[in-house]
């Protein structure tokens, strides 16, 4: 399983699908948590080559999609201010807030810049000492080490015109919230490979045991995903529920411990709102008090912005796996990648965008 041809070999994929069909006797619902995996599953039709009695449910694994509208509104409020140089990852610029988005703020004269790394924002702060440079720090556990280090470096280098608007979210509490939600149908999880490359997978053992669910750490290639599904089905058929690592070329049980130490130094866990889902207890990170100076919410006094979300968009149900994108009445009509109602259509890795781009208008 080392060479490119093996990861994406069509014949091997069909063989693996046939093996899954051979072992699969029951009806199983399996959720992939990562947006990159959702994209790969739909793009490669993996959900269509596995047996019909396996349903792939798409989880809340896109950080752009789950960033709550309140954070977008806070970003818009800050970015519109004079003397602010607002930095964000590119895919956040089109995410709609209550009345606008970052592109419109930029079009209206706001200094909104796309950066690839939070360190680019720190550099801009060093380069423009008379301006306030603010970075929109979103993302799962994969992104948190970078954002934590940006804050640490700003402090070490006495850069005081830099701050971060933090909206970090964590995968394990989301899995727990899905398992506890009324009407939950998920019976196994494919855990996000890159999140686990940072955090390891030791924290999943408790979830697998407590909720009696198989959790398989999975990569992004078609064969990685099929192998993840196969391993999940083997466990489901045997009535087992443990954690398996199907992505050992990238993921270890312990993860990147240097990165984890920096996260622990800079961030502490907090309750966090997820777009369309609501507040999940202890599902996010915020800056520790000793880094409060770098908290953009405090610096710009936007803590109290708390808007209402529109009822027209059913992204919350899509993110919980309760609704498939094409089952939303607005899908492909009022809501398209050019005119998105919700973040799951904005982000290229959102489930709605994946369904739209690959023509899944009728059949799941």
């Amino acid at each position, binding site marked *: 399983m*080392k*060479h*490119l041809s093996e*990861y*994406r070999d069509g014949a091997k994929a069909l063989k693996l699908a046939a093996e899954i069909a051979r072992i699969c006797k029951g009806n199983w619902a399996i959720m992939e948590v*990562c*947006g*990159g995996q959702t*994209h*790969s599953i739909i*793009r490669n039709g993996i959900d269509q080559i596995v047996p019909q009695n396996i349903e792939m449910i798409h989880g809340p694994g*896109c*950080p*752009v999609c789950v960033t709550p509208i309140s954070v977008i509104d806070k970003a818009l409020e800050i970015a519109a201010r004079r003397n602010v140089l607002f930095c964000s*990852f*590119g*895919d*956040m610029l089109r995410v709609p807030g209550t009345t606008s988005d970052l592109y419109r703020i930029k079009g209206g004269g706001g200094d909104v*810049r*796309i*950066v*690839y*790394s*939070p*360190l*680019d924002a720190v*550099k*801009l702060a060093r*380069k423009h000492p008379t301006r306030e440079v603010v970075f929109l720090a979103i*993302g799962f556990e*994969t*992104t948190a*080490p*970078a*954002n934590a*280090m940006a804050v640490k*470096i700003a402090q*070490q*280098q006495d850069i005081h015109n830099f701050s971060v608007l933090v909206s970090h979210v964590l995968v394990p509490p989301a899995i727990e919230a899905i398992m506890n939600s009324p009407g939950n149908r998920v019976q196994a999880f494919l855990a996000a490979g*890159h999140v686990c*490359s*940072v955090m390891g997978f030791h924290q999943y053992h408790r979830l697998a045991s407590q909720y009696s669910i198989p959790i398989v750490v999975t990569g*992004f*290639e078609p064969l990685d995903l099929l192998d993840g599904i196969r391993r999940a089905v083997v466990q489901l058929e045997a009535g087992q529920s443990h954690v398996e690592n199907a992505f050992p*070329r*990238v993921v270890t049980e312990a993860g*990147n411990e*240097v*990165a984890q130490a*920096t996260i622990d130094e800079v961030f502490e866990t907090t309750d966090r709102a997820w777009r369309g889902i609501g507040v999940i207890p202890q599902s996010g990170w915020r800056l520790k008090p000793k880094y409060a100076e770098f908290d953009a919410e405090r610096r710009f006094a936007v803590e109290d912005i708390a808007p209402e979300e529109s009822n027209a968009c059913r992204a919350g149900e899509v993110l919980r796996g309760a609704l498939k994108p094409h089952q939303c009445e607005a899908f492909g009509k009022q809501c398209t990648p050019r005119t998105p109602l919700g973040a799951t259509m904005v*982000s*290229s*890795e959102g489930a709605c965008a994946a369904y739209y781009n690959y023509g899944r208008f009728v059949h799941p």
Partner: protein
Amino acid sequence: MCLAVPGQIESLYADNDTPMGKVNFGGVVKEVCMVYLPEVQIGDYVIVHVGFAIHQIDEESAQATLESFAELGLLDDELEDLRVSGEDS
């Protein structure tokens, strides 16, 4: 910004005491922070997410992932961000 993209380390240096490196992503070279992988050397392949190397991988896995992302159309978005950020900063 979801993706973690593999690339090859071309050089290693320090910037204000922060360990950095130049990493080649299939032709696009970008500055990457190496603070989370203190053991890496020039020529190694690493997975990079938002400007930080987070894991070392072997060359074959790196090439496989790069080609797969390119085929999925995911790499264009990531590399576009690389180019845009280079112009902006």
